[in-house]
């Protein structure tokens, strides 16, 4: 099933994998920086771990100062959380539900946003280490498919688990495997396949945008080092935000669909009970 589409990409990917043309270094893969045993840590993993430490550390050390009258950091955090909750309310229609699914949606937004913006910092891509291979020390996490695919898989799995928890595993599986009539059966199969399509679209959308931005900035910076990259940097700041928003909004919508009872079934159940 997933043969046709990715094979075309694969041939393209091979030609693009690593190109060294007059100092411009573009790699489709994240480069290995160091080894821990047999595990090769990539520059993308280094930065994503850094982002993780930054966010988790801020929350961990900031939590002692939480008070009813907020300080500066708490104010910003509350503003973010309130904003995310308001958006979630508009989709889920219930504050309680929003608070319940805030950890997944909010973390995706914050993690992707911080990763994208930290990936634009000076030094990312330009600090080069000569370890396992000569490569930049940092790489925007989302410019590595491992990061985006991991996020996508975790998200899709989490959405399904949350859906099953909200309406019951049977009802949730019934969305995919429906033997009542042939039409519903095929719709169910399509739904099932679309879960995997979601993983692919999630991961490649984010990866494509961020990687393209990296390439764009590298090339523009190589051609005209001063001033000209500035608008592109602003563009990438915007793209970084938009991609974080898209990833989290899509997750939110998928969660909203997953926790809602299937229209027809719910209707049938209501009529049976009523």
């Amino acid at each position, binding site marked *: 099933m997933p043969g046709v589409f990715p094979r075309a990409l694969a041939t393209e990917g091979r030609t693009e994998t690593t190109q060294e043309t007059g100092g411009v270094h573009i790699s489709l893969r994240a480069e290995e920086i160091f080894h821990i045993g047999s595990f090769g840590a990539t520059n993308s993993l280094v930065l994503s771990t850094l982002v993780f430490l930054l966010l988790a550390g801020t929350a961990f050390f900031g939590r002692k100062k939480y008070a009813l009258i907020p300080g500066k950091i708490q104010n910003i955090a509350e503003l973010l959380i309130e904003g995310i909750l308001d958006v979630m309310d508009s989709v889920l229609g219930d504050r309680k539900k929003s608070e319940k699914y805030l950890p997944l949606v909010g973390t995706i937004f914050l*993690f992707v946003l911080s990763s994208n913006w930290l990936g634009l910092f000076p030094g990312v891509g330009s600090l080069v280490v000569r370890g396992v291979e000569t490569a930049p020390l940092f790489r925007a996490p989302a410019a590595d498919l491992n990061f985006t695919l991991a996020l996508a898989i975790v998200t899709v799995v989490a959405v399904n688990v949350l859906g099953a928890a909200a309406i019951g595993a049977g009802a949730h599986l019934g969305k995919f495997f429906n033997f009542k009539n042939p039409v519903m059966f095929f719709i169910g199969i399509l739904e099932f396949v679309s879960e995997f399509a979601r993983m692919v679209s999630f991961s490649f959308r984010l990866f494509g945008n961020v990687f393209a931005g990296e390439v764009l900035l590298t090339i523009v910076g190589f051609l005209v080092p001063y001033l000209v990259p500035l608008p592109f940097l602003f563009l990438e700041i915007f793209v970084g935000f938009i991609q974080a928003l898209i990833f989290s909004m899509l997750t939110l919508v998928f969660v909203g669909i997953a926790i809602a009872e299937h229209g027809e079934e719910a209707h049938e159940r209501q009529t049976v009970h009523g």
Partner: protein
Amino acid sequence: MSELFHNLGIDWKLLLSQAVNFGLLIIALRAFAYKPLVALLNERRAKIEEGLTKAKEADVRLGEANLLAKTRVKEAEEEALLILKNTEYEAKTLEGTLAAKAHEKEAVMMREAEERAKAKGAEVEAAFAKETVAIVRAALVKTVELSPDAVDEALIKKAVVAVKHAP
């Protein structure tokens, strides 16, 4: 398939580590940021709501109290006016009765005084009459004592002296 994954740089170990990173971040942020902050937000919202309802209640109470005070003042004023009127009326009636009583008393006193004066006059008259009788009697006695043959002059003089010296 594996070649494709290799070309894209997909490695299950890296995938797993990124997923673990993400999962840990969800857990950490849930524990240290979302839960306490959402609780705080809800607490603050509850407090503000409570404060607003209390303020509203206080406003209503204040309005009621003001109304009550106004009506009370009005009532008190009316009452005071009534009392004043009553007092005035009572005072007037009392004045009237007092004046009437005074007149009466005056009249009584006048009458009494008149009567007393009259009585005294009668007493004086009586006493005068008594005295006159005594004088006349004394004068007669003296006259009888003197012989009619005595000089009239001396007789008259004696009589006069007797009358004068009579008590």
